[in-house]
């Protein structure tokens, strides 16, 4: 049991998550969206680690490691898509990719 109360950890995690989410929604540049996604993933990691340390369980860290792999894969695929998009549209504006309606 650490001295940091779980409530405060969760406040930090939700703050970070909210910042990331606003970034994802508000930014038009796809690269910034990707970075905001990383921030969001981190926020989730904070929540897991905090919970794990409060209950003194290793599961929280295991979850964080899984999130880490997810972030790695996501970054790889996302960046590859960005490169593709750059070649095709000469821009990273996500609103150009609205051809798939409905």
């Amino acid at each position, binding site marked *: 049991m650490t001295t940091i109360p779980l409530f*405060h950890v969760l406040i930090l995690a939700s703050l970070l998550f909210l*910042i990331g989410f606003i970034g994802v929604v508000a930014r038009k540049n796809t690269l910034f969206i990707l970075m905001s996604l990383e921030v969001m993933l981190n926020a989730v990691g904070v929540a897991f680690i905090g919970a794990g340390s409060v209950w003194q369980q290793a599961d929280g860290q295991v979850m964080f490691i899984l999130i880490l792999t997810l972030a790695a894969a996501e970054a790889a695929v996302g960046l590859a898509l960005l490169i593709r998009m750059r070649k095709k549209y000469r821009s990273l504006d996500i609103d150009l990719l609205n051809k798939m309606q409905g």
Partner: protein
Amino acid sequence: MLANLASIESLFYLAGLVAVIASLKVVTGHNTVHALLYLVVSLLAVAVCFYLMGAPFAAGLEVIVYAGAILVLFVFAVLMFGLGKDETRNAPQNKSLANMLGAMLLAFALLVEMVLIINNSEIQQSLHATVIGSKAVGIMLYGPYLLAVEIASFLLLAGLLTGYHYAKPDVTGGSL
């Protein structure tokens, strides 16, 4: 003043503040490379938080894998494929170090914090009592979570293949 600062909670709040500020700068940034720099700072701050929460292994991974590998991948992609071009118009035209001052200041604050933590034996003691070591995590990973690990490996493989497929140049010139 220093004694006041030197409690685990206050250090945690400080690191959290750094993380929040850095994240805000990431989200609101104009220059891609600067934003990435702030993202690195944000990740480092989160790593400090992890450390303070008694998860040094996670903190290490955060620094090595997240900041060290994933973010470097971002930087590579941005610099090599010109992904930052859209933003260069908005970027400040002077190339002085002042552009990076904010990020450096935040990183410096984190450094001070780390030094404080490592130097303060009281904090070290209380942290030791609550730490969940890499051994426990390893046992969990290769015990009950073995299947998850396998799936994660598949995910990585899939990410690798997808990344390769999408990023390779169009030799045939056809569509996707």
